[in-house]
């Protein structure tokens, strides 16, 4: 068994040695394909995470009071809200607390807020609703209460994000299919050249009673090698690019959207697994296609 594998490995390396240029070119091309896929993957994973993070907040509706409400009226409204359908819990956020939160979020730029003569932020209630449907109904009713200025809730954002992430999902799937087909064609052509160089040898092997798998072995390994090598290079490149991206944008994104980007090393492990399986698949399919015609002769 091992000597058979050894034979195939030895053969496939000697074949690669004879067609270095071609193998190198197809590794480059497939690496480029995987790079594109990798960037799609990175975008998808992040938007998906973002959508999920926000979705966890679907059940919070922020209800803002009019600025000139008396404390008593605000308190009244709080009780009223608590009694409404679908409301789970209500938390008061005073204008002072809201300002503190804002300052924290603005970080280094918070000094800008120090110049304000009076706090422009209203008091508000964080209203926890039981489910998404309740949130929508509650939102419609609560704005009719006198003394309530405005509300915000995440439903719209969630819908938009869901659309975006679905779009990226579909786009990457379509791209992936195209890129996989192109990659298979590239591998098949590379391997075919090697097969053609050895056409006579293959026909002799068939007369000698070699099994199809014995003949295919070295060619399949050649294809797998192209796939694996490309996947390693592509994973490395995506990692470097993404890490740089997190470095430059990560802080800003965290501040503005209050979500963090998926850490690069978590991503890379998944990417490596995906690329490696993809690479092996492309290599095997491509080489089997390229040699099929020669085996049938």
């Amino acid at each position, binding site marked *: 068994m091992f000597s058979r594998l050894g034979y195939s490995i030895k053969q496939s390396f000697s074949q690669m040695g004879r067609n270095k240029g071609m193998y190198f070119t197809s590794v480059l091309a497939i690496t480029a394909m995987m790079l594109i896929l990798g960037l799609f993957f990175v975008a998808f994973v992040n938007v998906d995470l973002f959508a999920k993070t926000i979705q966890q907040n679907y059940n919070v509706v922020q209800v803002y009071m009019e600025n000139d409400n008396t404390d008593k009226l605000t308190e009244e409204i709080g009780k009223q809200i608590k009694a409404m359908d679908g409301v789970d819990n209500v938390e008061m956020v005073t204008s002072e607390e809201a300002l503190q939160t804002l300052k924290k979020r603005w970080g280094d730029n918070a000094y800008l807020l120090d110049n304000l003569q009076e706090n422009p932020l209203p008091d508000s209630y964080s209203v926890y609703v039981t489910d998404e449907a309740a949130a929508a109904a509650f939102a419609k009713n609560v704005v009719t209460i006198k003394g309530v200025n405005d509300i915000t809730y995440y439903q719209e954002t969630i819908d938009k994000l869901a659309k975006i992430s679905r779009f990226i999902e579909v786009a990457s799937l379509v791209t992936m299919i195209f890129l996989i087909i192109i990659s298979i064609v590239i591998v098949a052509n590379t391997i075919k050249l090697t097969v053609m160089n050895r056409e006579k040898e293959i026909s002799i092997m068939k007369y000698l*009673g*070699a099994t199809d798998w014995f003949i295919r072995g070295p060619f399949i390994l050649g294809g797998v090698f192209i796939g694996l090598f490309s996947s390693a290079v592509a994973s490395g490149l995506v990692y470097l690019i993404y890490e740089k991206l997190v470095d430059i944008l990560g802080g800003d994104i965290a501040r503005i959207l209050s979500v963090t980007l998926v850490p690069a090393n978590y991503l890379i492990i998944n990417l490596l697994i995906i690329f490696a399986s993809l690479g092996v698949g492309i290599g095997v399919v491509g080489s089997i296609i390229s040699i099929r015609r020669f085996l049938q002769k």
Partner: protein
Amino acid sequence: MIVFKNVTKNYGGNTGLNRASVHINKGDFVFLVGPSGAGKTTFIRLILKEIEPDSGSISVAGKDITNLSRREIPELRQKIGMVFQDFRLIEKKTVYENVAFAMEVLHRSKKEIRERVPYVLDLVDIADKADRYPHELSAGEQQRVGIARAIVNRPRVLIADEPTGNLDPVTAMEIMALLEKINVRGTTILMVTHAKDIVDQMHKRVVAIEHGQIVRDEEGKYGFETVNPYYFSGEEVDPYVF
């Protein structure tokens, strides 16, 4: 060893073989003759299952190959040694490596190969050129290597399609002597040839094809003199392999 029963093979409108029946026994030495386009190569390709008959049945070494699956073809070909007119050696392998390759293909162990290859090279009288490449050999020497490669795995039958076609008469007779030696040691031989002088001198069984039909099947005149351990017995015993 090889039995054709009413085998027909057409290529579109062309007749390859037409209701051909032939029975080749273990240990036989048979010449297959006929004009160009008669169907000789078709006959051989059917034995190797490179092509399928339209009708009739073929069996090789006691096994009906008519309904063999693709996966069983290697096993069939391992029973057959092939020798070609154009030798078909691998140019970048030495004589030794060419013969060893036939064993590697069948996953023989290194030890087995180291023992067997020199023995066979010696048998075909080419041992002194083991480390040469095919292009460094004469045509006759290349054919000896071709024969060594064909017998190294101890096939049941050796099939040669015009093995002397590229050789001068003297070298051709040397190759015939070698084939005879292999036959005497128990391997059935089927040889396609155009060379009338060879057929006449060898006094072997001759099967003649024309337009795909077997038109003549004559026993060797001096069959009694030829050492053929199976000639009289007729029973299916394993040949004594060298």
